[in-house]
């Protein structure tokens, strides 16, 4: 144990002092902070103002459209009405759009029968957001006109057109009923799964890279005369795991600092309200550790059979494929987190960490499933370590060329 602790401490200190650690530790929260800040600034309305004109023969319809555009807007759009509009107005207003004095023109022509014909002129073909808003305002205005035309009173027509909202609540296992938001839950699960896969793979590869570097620098020969290969492998895995947990802790603290800030509070209200549970808080580092140990122990063994990092790249799909598979299942999981496929993928060790977090985003899975997935992961880590420690023990003393598959299997059989 003494040697394992010393090797782990050395590995930890070397990695946390490295430039790469500082760059990713500070860089990632900084990128998130910038994203939150940019989001906040856009909510402050620092974007440019838009000037639109609604021109129609029917003044009532034009004003109704204007009212809707002003009501659903954040105060950044100025809407003027030209009504009743004549043919010569059209040429003049289109010219104003061309010279960019106007940002958009909605020309509504009343037809003798049927619905009016609407045309939208804009200096940019990509302004689809404004186009969609205009379409919605126009259709709502037309429906309202038809309702009032059919005898409905204006306040009633307004009430009908305003519609109603469906509020969603999640009933927890303990009986609590909490406000939920599928959109926010999806993004929460997605972001956590990305963070989990990123850290697991980054640190798994860190172990592999460090083994290749030490094999190249021939330090293993010195170390093996003092420490057992199993101790060296364990020390390395523990040291790098501690580096990963340190980074996650720093990110967590930075995340908390960012999310309790007034900037994020402004951004994360309403539709983006995100709820984190204690279960997720505890299971995130647990699944990180399990995922990391699974991948790093596999890559530690494979790295010992390689001479260069380029040779190791050949094994990358072994780590990448389960990650791709997990993310490919995202819609299936979000749709029905308890389907047989979702449950199976969350129990299958290579995909378990990511899929479990995607499932948790919509609903905390039954405790037995979480327990079983952790149990299966521990078993597979044990089996991978058994295999890898054998490759490691022989591979680190073999120089000159990458081991073939036959050699790898032979090494695994050595007692």
């Amino acid at each position, binding site marked *: 144990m003494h*040697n394992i602790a*010393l090797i782990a401490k*050395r590995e930890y200190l*070397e990695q946390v*002092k*490295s430039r790469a650690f500082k760059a990713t530790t500070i860089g990632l929260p900084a990128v998130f902070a910038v994203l939150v800040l940019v989001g906040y600034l856009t909510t402050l309305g620092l974007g440019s103002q838009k000037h639109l004109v609604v021109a129609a023969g029917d003044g009532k319809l034009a004003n109704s459209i204007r009212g809707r555009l002003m009501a659903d807007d954040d105060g950044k759009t100025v809407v003027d009405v030209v009504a009743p509009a004549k043919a010569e107005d059209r040429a003049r207003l289109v010219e104003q759009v061309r010279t960019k004095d106007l940002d958009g023109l909605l020309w509504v022509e009343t037809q003798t029968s049927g619905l009016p014909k609407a045309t939208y002129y804009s200096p940019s073909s990509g302004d689809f957001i404004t186009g969609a808003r205009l379409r919605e305002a126009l259709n709502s205005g037309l429906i309202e006109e038809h309702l009032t035309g059919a005898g409905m009173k204006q306040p009633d027509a307004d009430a009908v057109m305003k519609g109603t909202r469906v509020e969603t609540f999640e009933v927890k296992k303990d009986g609590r009923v909490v406000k939920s938001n599928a959109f926010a839950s999806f993004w929460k699960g997605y972001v956590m799964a990305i963070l989990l896969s990123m850290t697991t793979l980054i640190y798994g590869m860190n172990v592999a890279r460090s083994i290749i570097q*030490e094999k190249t*620098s*021939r*330090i*293993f*020969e*010195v*170390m*093996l*005369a*003092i*420490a*057992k290969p199993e101790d060296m492998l364990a020390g390395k895995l523990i040291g790098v795991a501690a580096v990963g947990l340190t980074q996650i802790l720093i990110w967590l603290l930075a995340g908390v600092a960012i999310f309790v800030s007034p900037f994020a509070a402004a951004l994360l209200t309403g539709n983006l309200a995100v709820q984190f549970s204690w279960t997720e808080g505890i299971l995130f580092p647990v699944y990180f550790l399990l995922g990391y140990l699974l991948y790093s122990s596999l890559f530690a063994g494979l790295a010992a059979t390689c001479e260069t990092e380029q040779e190791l790249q050949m094994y990358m799909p072994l780590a990448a494929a389960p990650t791709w598979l997990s993310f490919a299942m995202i819609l299936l999981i979000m749709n029905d987190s308890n389907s047989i496929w979702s449950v199976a993928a969350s129990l299958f060790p290579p995909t378990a960490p990511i899929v479990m977090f995607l499932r948790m985003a919509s609903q905390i899975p039954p405790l037995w499933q979480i327990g079983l997935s952790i149990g299966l992961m521990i078993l597979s880590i044990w089996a991978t370590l058994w295999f890898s420690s054998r490759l490691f023990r022989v591979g680190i*003393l073999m120089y000159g060329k990458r081991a073939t598959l036959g050699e790898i299997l*032979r090494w695994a059989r050595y007692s």
Partner: protein
Amino acid sequence: MTVVELEAVTKAYESKVAVKELSLKVEAGQMFGLLGPNGAGKTSTIRMMMGITIPDSGRIRLFDEPFERKALERVGYLPEERGLYKKMKVVDQLVFFGRLHGLEADEARKRAKAWAERMEIADALDKKTEELSKGMQQKIQFIASLLHDPGLIVMDEPFSGLDPVNAVLVEKTLLELKAGGKAIIFSTHRMDQVEKLCDSICLVDNGRAVLAGRMREIKAAYERNRVVVEFEGSAEFLKSEEIAEAKNFSGHAEIRLKEHGNAQKLLQEASAAATIYRFELVEPSLEEIFIQTVGGKGNA
């Protein structure tokens, strides 16, 4: 005390037998040379002594006890393939290795400073290893193997990468350690150093010990058939029938006599042809013994 003992040790890899029934014994206060051409099995033998690999058969004893990993705390090892953590500061590196050998951190630090002064690299202690020259790194590695005051020191090519001044410093240090009762095994191709430093040798070829024993006894067992002559005048005597091979370096000749060649007769012939300043019948060098024994396969 017998510090290390190998009894009929055998180690085979997939395609070849690296070491076959090798036996050797090294006592405390002894400098022991493990010699052999490339691929003879020296490194395999050392790796088994260090517990890096396990023998297929035979016995290894360290400090008069059957091999146990715990005993490795009393062994200092400088492998042929040098390895240091490049990004680590030298002092941290030495403390790390000292602690792995069971020293407390403070004690390891104190010893690292003392050794750095002794090896004339005190200025390098606070530098990163990658900033040092190859020779400096070699000295750091040398210190790392001695920091914990081992009873057995195993060194594979300890002089490689050292300039003559530092080679003398390492040589002097090894002799001091030997005088202090340490058992030292070193493996090298530098026969001159083995001849100068070692009390005993074991010459390995194809995994087997082909020559072993005390240096003096080994050399005494070989016939004195080499003659060094310093002369002035005609070199005609170098064509004598007593001579198997002769190299003439302008008045300095190195001669190998034929089997049963008569040195006295040669001296007479030389005296008749030239003025002789020196005529010395010398014992064979270790290099000659090495080449003769392994049939000129070595790189020595």
